[in-house]
């Protein structure tokens, strides 16, 4: 079914940064985008934290509110740009006094609290590397990422540390310093209070010269096989964060901006911390969990003007209003300050785009990007029409294409060459021409997988898409087995490995089962070892077992027993077939299946 396009007001309240798409693409260059930033004084290079914080003080805007932090209990604390500059200087001095240097990795395992901003930006000031973790990860994913990323410093809370790190600290020999944000009930060995260190630290810190190509951020993401991949981003990425936030989020200096993403994921970093601060806007930071009333209240009371959220959250809000059989819940709140809404994570269904228009008075603008791209690549823009259900069009400075696919579902590479599909609506692997500043520069310690992400001068995204005759891209699905659930990528291998550590499990195959709210939920098929029989008790035990290890963000929400998991001749569980069976789709080519001719 074709959905009607949403045309835009010719006289909007705020003139959009991008009004004429073709003209904006013609006029754009990354060099010009770089010129929008300040650079470190005295040709000192380019440092993300300087662009996000200190340059606003140099420009006389130090008194402007940088953060409006809403605690779980609703208390609001404001932090000015000048205050943020001092706090981040203190944290940089803490790192320096601990002997933490350029390139050393500082990890956060924190919710959305003011100390998160201090840690992230203070780390960048010190030219150390920041790696955020998601607090809904269980102990296994947390420890694995700390180890793979060579964490020297971890900033977290006492509760999270006790739950996820403490009992295996000895397996992390590189982890030297653990800082506790918030109250400490009883001192633990080899940990120290964040607040006490901050109190003692000097607020005088000069950012050392920073090469734009210096590593700044490390973001773990998941692939089909193997361990999580640490995507490396450099300080130059800030050029792309800044430019894309102007185009795709339409940020203007007077905006009050709220990004609901968790800081453990790339959205929470690129657009929850860095990009809005480079624009000098006021950022709303909510520590609380999703709650429809809380969210509407924040939008209303904080006078949020630009809101960046996720399809899963939008669909949860839709459920709330749908059950009332009208759109009354949002109407209890004054949402008049809101002027632009964007969403990212998994495709936003057309119904959700239009629900925004009916219930909130504004359509929702979907956009698309990945951990590896570091910034928004394809978007529906504030100043141009929306095609509900589409990812949008490539941003200025971004070249995208769809490539012909081979039998394995990925781009077909023949003699080092790929084939770009030019006819409208042809489905293929979405590919991007590298060259934008926030492009990842490697997977940490894994050159082989990095090299495998490119072919014939294209970065291969692993997503399947089509491009319509007018240039809009439409998401079709994943080209591999990675699961997109509630805006997060989940690697089936990580889940299967955890399940197979259970004594009853012989083999496991993990897929995404379509879900009306989360896009997909993690479902595991397991076969049992001799002596174990399927039962409801065992199902619950396996759910609990994987949840303890992996945490709610990664663990399966459904388990099915199957003693005949489809496997290739080489013995690999065929997730593609499990998916086809689950969805009642044709099983396709099964010639490589075990037992077939």
């Amino acid at each position, binding site marked *: 079914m074709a959905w009607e396009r949403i045309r835009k007001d010719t006289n909007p309240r705020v003139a959009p940064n991008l009004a004429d798409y073709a003209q904006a693409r013609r006029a754009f260059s990354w060099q010009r985008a770089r010129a929008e930033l300040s650079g470190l004084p005295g040709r000192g290079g380019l440092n993300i934290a300087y662009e996000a914080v200190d340059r606003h003080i140099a420009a006389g805007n130090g008194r402007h509110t940088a953060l409006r932090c809403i605690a779980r209990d609703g208390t609001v604390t404001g932090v000015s740009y000048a205050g943020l500059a001092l706090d981040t200087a203190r944290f940089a001095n803490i790192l320096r006094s601990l002997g933490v240097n350029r390139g050393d990795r500082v990890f956060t395992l924190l919710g959305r609290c003011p100390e998160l901003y201090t840690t992230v930006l203070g780390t960048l000031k010190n030219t150390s590397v920041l790696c955020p973790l998601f607090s*809904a990860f269980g102990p296994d994913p947390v420890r694995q990422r700390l180890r793979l990323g060579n964490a020297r410093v971890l900033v977290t809370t006492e509760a999270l540390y006790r*739950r996820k790190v403490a009992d295996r600290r000895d397996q992390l020999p590189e982890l030297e310093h653990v800082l506790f944000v918030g109250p400490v009930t009883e001192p633990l060995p080899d940990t120290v209070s964040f607040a006490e260190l901050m109190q003692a630290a000097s607020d005088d810190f000069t950012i050392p010269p920073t090469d734009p190509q210096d590593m700044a951020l490390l973001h773990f993401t998941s692939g089909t096989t193997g361990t999580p991949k640490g995507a490396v981003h450099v300080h130059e990425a800030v050029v792309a964060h800044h430019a894309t936030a102007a185009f795709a989020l339409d940020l203007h200096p007077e905006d009050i901006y709220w990004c609901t993403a968790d800081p453990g994921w790339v959205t929470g970093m690129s657009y929850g911390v860095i990009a809005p601060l480079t624009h000098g806007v006021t950022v709303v930071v909510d520590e609380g*969990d*999703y*709650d*429809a*009333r809380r969210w509407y209240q924040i939008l209303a009371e904080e006078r949020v003007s630009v809101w960046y959220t996720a399809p*899963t*959250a939008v669909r*949860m809000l839709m459920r*709330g209003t749908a*059950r*009332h059989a009208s759109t009354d*819940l949002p109407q209890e709140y004054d949402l008049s300050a809101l002027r632009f809404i964007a969403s990212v994570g998994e495709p936003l269904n057309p119904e959700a785009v239009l629900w925004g228009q009916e219930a909130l008075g504004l359509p929702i603008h979907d956009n698309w990007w990945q951990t590896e791209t570091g910034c928004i690549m394809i978007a529906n823009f504030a100043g141009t029409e929306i095609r509900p259900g589409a990812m949008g069009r490539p941003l200025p400075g971004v070249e995208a294409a769809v490539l012909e696919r081979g039998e394995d579902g990925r781009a077909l590479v023949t003699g080092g060459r790929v084939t770009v599909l030019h006819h409208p609506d042809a489905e293929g692997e979405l590919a991007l021409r590298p060259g934008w500043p926030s492009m990842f520069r490697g997977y940490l310690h894994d050159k082989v997988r990095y090299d495998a992400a490119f072919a014939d001068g294209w970065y291969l995204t692993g997503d399947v898409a089509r491009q319509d005759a007018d240039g809009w891209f439409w998401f079709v699905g994943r080209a591999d087995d990675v699961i997109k659930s*509630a805006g997060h990528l989940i690697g089936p291998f990580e889940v299967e490995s955890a399940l197979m550590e259970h004594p009853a499990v012989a083999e496991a195959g993990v897929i995404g089962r379509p879900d009306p*709210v*989360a896009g997909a*939920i993690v479902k595991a098929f397991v076969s049992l070892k001799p002596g174990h029989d399927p039962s409801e008790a065992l199902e*619950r*035990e396996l*759910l*609990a077992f994987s*949840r*303890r290890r992996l*945490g*709610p*963000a990664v663990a399966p*929400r459904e388990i099915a027993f199957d003693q005949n998991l489809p496997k290739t001749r080489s013995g690999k569980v065929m997730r593609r077939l499990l998916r086809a069976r689950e969805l009642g789709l044709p099983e396709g080519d099964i010639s490589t299946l075990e037992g077939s001719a």
Partner: protein
Amino acid sequence: MNRTEALEIVKDSIARIVPDADFTRLGPDEKFRDALEMDSLDFLGFVETLIERTGLAIDENDYPALTTLSESADFLVTRAAGRAGQPPSP
């Protein structure tokens, strides 16, 4: 529905999401979402199970009453009493 039945339904509904939830260590007035690390999808699943088990209408306005075991049980008792004498919801 009496208070004891209500509390059992609350615990069962939590256990559907967190099968190894240890109710001997979870205080009646402790916020169970934090204690058991339930995310938004988990909480949604919990509410759906409550609705399924009780037949009561529960929506976003009621979520603030569903933060601890005690409050959740009280909520179910009150809501069920409010519905007594009315035809069952479809």
